[in-house]
C-alpha cells in the first residue's frame, strides 16, 4: 500500500498498530492472508503445525495496521488481529 | 390437557371421512398444515384452509409433496403440531422427508388416503396397497406408527389419537385412510372441547447449556425444544450423537439407530390397538382393517349363519403390528383369514406372526372397489375345513 503524497492531516491521524494472533493448529496453509495483507506483513512459515501445514508468521514487526483483513478472509478462523496498545486486553484473553 | 375450543367444531355433523379427519386435526391442536392437492385427499386440506384463518392456523399449499413434507418436518421444530395429507403417488414422494422426520424425531402426522395403485393407478377409487409402504417406504432402519380408521367418526377420533401418539413417541404417524372411508359421508359426533384429551407438545425443563437434543437418561423419548427459545441446538438427518452432531461411526449408528427402533419396538404394547369380536372358541379368525373391516362383518355374518365359529379382529393401530396377540391366537385357532384391498401386504405380517401354527389365507382385491362379502364367506368356509 503506498500513498502518492503524504495526507494533509497525517500529523493528526494516528495509524493504528495491530498485533497478529495465529491459531497455529487450525491453519490449513491456504495463504489467503499472506496474499492479501495490505502491508505484506505475513509469510508462510518454514515450520509445520500439527497437521503438516505451514501457518503464517509475521515478518514485519510493528507494521500491522489492525485492518483485520486477514481475520475476515481466513476460511479457517485461524488468524485475527488485536490493537497492539491494548496489552491488558490482549493478555486477558478472550474475544475483543 | 383438554382440546383448545377454537379448533373444535362441537356438534352432530354429517361429514365425509376427509372432512372429519381435518376436523380431528384441528381439534387435536394442529396449527400448521402444508399440503399438495391429490385425489382423494384434497378435501382434508380444503376444509382446513377454510377454517384455519379463524383459529390462528397457517395452511400453505406447497409446490409439491416433497416440499410439503419438508415444511412439516421444519414446522415441527417451532412447537406447532403439524400435518400433511396425500395419497399413493404423493406418499412415495414424501418418503425422503418422512425418513428425515423419523431421524430427527420430529412429531407430525401424515395422512394417506389410499387409492388404487401402483403409480397413478385409480385416482378416485379405493385401494389399501400402501400398507407395507407406510412401514418400509423410506430407506434405512426405522420404526413408526400407523393407524387405520374404518368410518368418518373414526377418521375424527383416530386423527386426534394419531397426534397424541406422535407427541408421546416423537415419531411421524401415518394415518392410513382409504378412499372409501375418505369419501363416505356419515354421522360424526364431535364432543365438547373439554371432553377431548390431547397430548400437548412437551418441551424440556432444562436450561440452554444443560440441554442435549438427544439425551435420553433412560427414558424412551428425548426431550424436545422449539427453535427460537435460545437453545442453539443442532439437529441433522445424518447419524448423530446426543448433542445432535453428526458422528460417522459404527458405534454411533448402533446406539442411535437402535434407540429409534427400540423406542417403538420395546413399547409396542402401549401403542398397539385392535378390536376383537367373538374370539373365544373361534375356529377361524378374520383380521381386517379400514373399509374392509366393515365389509368383512357382512361376510362373517354369512359364515356364522352356516354354523362356522368365526371370530373377528379389527386392526386399529396397524404398525406396530399386534405381534404378541397374533402369536397367542395362532395357538388357539385353526386359521386366519385376511381380506385386504391389495394382493397381500398385511397378510405377510399375519403369516409371519402365525408362525405356521394356524393357516393364513388372503382374500385379495385389486382395488377400485370393496370385497364381495360372499368371497370372504367362501374363504372362511375353506379355512374352516
Amino acid at each position, binding site marked *: 500500500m503506498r500513498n502518492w503524497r503524504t495526507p494533509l492531516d497525517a500529523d493528526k491521524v494516528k495509524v493504528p498498530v495491530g498485533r497478529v*494472533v495465529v*491459531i*497455529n*493448529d487450525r491453519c*490449513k496453509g*491456504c*495463504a*489467503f492472508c499472506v*496474499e492479501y495483507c495490505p502491508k505484506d506483513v505475513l509469510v508462510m512459515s518454514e515450520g509445520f503445525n500439527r497437521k503438516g*501445514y505451514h501457518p*503464517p508468521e*509475521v515478518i514485519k514487526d*510493528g507494521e500491522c495496521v489492525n485492518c483485520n483483513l486477514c*481475520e*475476515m*478472509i481466513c*476460511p*479457517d*478462523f485461524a488468524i*485475527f488481529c488485536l490493537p497492539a496498545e491494548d496489552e491488558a486486553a490482549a493478555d486477558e484473553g*478472550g474475544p*475483543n | 390437557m383438554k382440546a383448545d375450543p377454537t379448533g373444535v367444531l362441537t356438534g352432530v355433523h354429517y361429514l365425509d371421512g376427509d372432512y372429519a379427519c381435518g376436523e380431528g386435526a384441528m381439534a387435536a391442536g394442529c396449527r400448521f398444515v*402444508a399440503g399438495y392437492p391429490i385425489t382423494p385427499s384434497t378435501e382434508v386440506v380444503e376444509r382446513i384452509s377454510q377454517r384455519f*384463518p*379463524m383459529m*390462528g*392456523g*397457517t395452511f*400453505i399449499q*406447497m*409446490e409439491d409433496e*416433497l*416440499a*410439503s413434507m*419438508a*415444511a*412439516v*418436518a*421444519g414446522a415441527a*421444530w*417451532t412447537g*406447532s*403440531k*403439524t400435518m400433511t395429507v396425500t395419497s399413493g403417488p404423493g406418499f412415495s414422494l414424501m418418503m*425422503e*422427508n418422512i425418513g*428425515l422426520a423419523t431421524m430427527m424425531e420430529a412429531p407430525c402426522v401424515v395422512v394417506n388416503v389410499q387409492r388404487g395403485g401402483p403409480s397413478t393407478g385409480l385416482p378416485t377409487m379405493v385401494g389399501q396397497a400402501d400398507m407395507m409402504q407406510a412401514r418400509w417406504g423410506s430407506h434405512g432402519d426405522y420404526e413408526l406408527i400407523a393407524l387405520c380408521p374404518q368410518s368418518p367418526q373414526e377418521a375424527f377420533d383416530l386423527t386426534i389419537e394419531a397426534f397424541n401418539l406422535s407427541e408421546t413417541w416423537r415419531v411421524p404417524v401415518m394415518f392410513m385412510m382409504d378412499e372409501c372411508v375418505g369419501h363416505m359421508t356419515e354421522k360424526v359426533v364431535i364432543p365438547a372441547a373439554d371432553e377431548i384429551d390431547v397430548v*400437548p*407438545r412437551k418441551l424440556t425443563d432444562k436450561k440452554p447449556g444443560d440441554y442435549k437434543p438427544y439425551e435420553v437418561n433412560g427414558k424412551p423419548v428425548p426431550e424436545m425444544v422449539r*427453535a*427460537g*427459545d435460545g437453545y*442453539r*441446538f*443442532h*439437529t*441433522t*438427518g*445424518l447419524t448423530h450423537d446426543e448433542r445432535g452432531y*453428526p458422528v460417522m461411526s459404527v458405534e454411533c449408528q448402533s446406539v442411535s439407530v437402535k434407540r429409534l427402533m427400540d423406542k417403538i419396538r420395546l413399547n409396542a404394547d402401549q401403542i398397539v390397538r385392535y378390536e376383537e369380536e367373538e374370539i373365544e372358541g373361534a375356529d377361524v379368525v378374520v383380521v381386517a382393517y379400514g373399509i374392509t373391516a366393515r365389509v368383512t362383518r357382512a361376510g362373517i355374518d354369512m359364515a356364522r349363519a352356516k354354523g362356522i365359529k368365526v371370530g373377528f379382529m379389527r386392526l386399529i393401530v396397524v404398525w406396530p403390528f399386534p405381534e404378541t396377540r397374533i402369536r397367542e391366537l395362532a395357538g388357539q385357532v385353526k386359521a386366519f383369514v385376511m381380506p385386504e384391498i391389495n394382493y397381500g401386504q398385511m397378510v405377510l405380517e399375519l403369516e409371519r406372526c402365525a408362525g405356521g401354527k394356524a393357516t393364513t389365507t388372503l382374500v385379495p382385491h385389486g382395488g377400485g372397489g370393496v370385497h364381495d362379502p360372499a368371497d370372504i364367506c367362501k374363504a372362511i368356509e375353506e379355512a374352516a375345513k
Partner: protein
Amino acid sequence: MSTESDAILAQEHPIAPFLRMDRMPHIWCPTCGIGTVVKCFATALDEAKVDLDKVAITSGIGCTGRVAGYMNLDAFHATHGRAIPFATGLKLGRPELEVVVFSGDGDLTGIGGNHFIHAARRNMDMLVILVNNFIYGMTGGQNAPTTPETARSSTMPFGNFERPFNLPHLAASCGASFVARWTCLHIRRLTKTIRTALNRKGFRFIEVIAPCPTLYSRLNRLGSGLDLVKFYHDNSEIKHGADTRELDIAFQDRFICGNFIDEERPTFLDMMHAHYTEILGDRYVPMSPEGGWLHE
C-alpha cells in the same frame, strides 16, 4: 511483536461466540472459500445486532450444507435440496424467527430448484446465501446446474455442454426482492450486503462465488483455491444495479458482481394477513408471531 504461539493462546478468535468451537477445525479443504463466507455471515450477524436466539439456520446436503452444523444458532441440517421448504415450515410455524438458508449451488438450484423458484415467487421471508463453486463438491465433482460451458466435471468428462443457470436472474425473475452476487474475496462488501439483507424482509438471495480447490479447480486444472481467488480479483467487475440478464458466467471469463435488486415488497405473510383481514375482517385470527405451540 511476533506471532503468538499456542502457549499464550487462551485467546480465541473473535468470531468464536457465533461458531460451534467444539467442532473446529471444520471439514472444508485448504483454500476452500466456504469458511470465508461463514466468517462474513457471522460478522454481519454481529454488526446487524440481530437477536441470535431468534435466528434459525438451515442447510442442505453438500460442502456448503455443513455450514448449519458449525453455527452456534438453532441449526438444521435437512435433506438434499429441501432446506428452503424446511425453512418455510420454520418461518410459518413461528413467524418471529429470522430464517436463514445457507447452502450450495447444486443443493439449492439442482434438486432444490423447484423449491427455490416457488419461495422466490411467494417472496417467502428468508435470507438465502448460496455458495456457488460451480460443482457438486462433496460427492466428488459432478456437473452442477451452474457449471459453466466447457468446464470439466466427473460426469461431464469431456467438458460441460449444458447451459448453466444465471442465478441472480433466476431469483429476480421469480420475484426475489433482494438479489446480490459477490465472491468470497469481496469480504467487506459481502459482509455489508449480508448485514443489509438481515434488516430487510422477503426473499433475499445472495450468491457468493467461492473456489472449490479439490474438485472444480483440480478437474479443470485451475490451480489451488488461492489461484482461483486471484482470478476473481482480476476478473470480477462491480456493477451495482446491473440488469440481471447480463450476469451469465462463462468458463474462466470476466463476470459481474454487485447488489442488483433491493426492493420493498410484501412478503408471503404480509399478503396473507392483508388478504384475510380484508376478506374475513374480525373473524380472522392470525397465528401469533410466537407460533402455533398450544400449551397449558
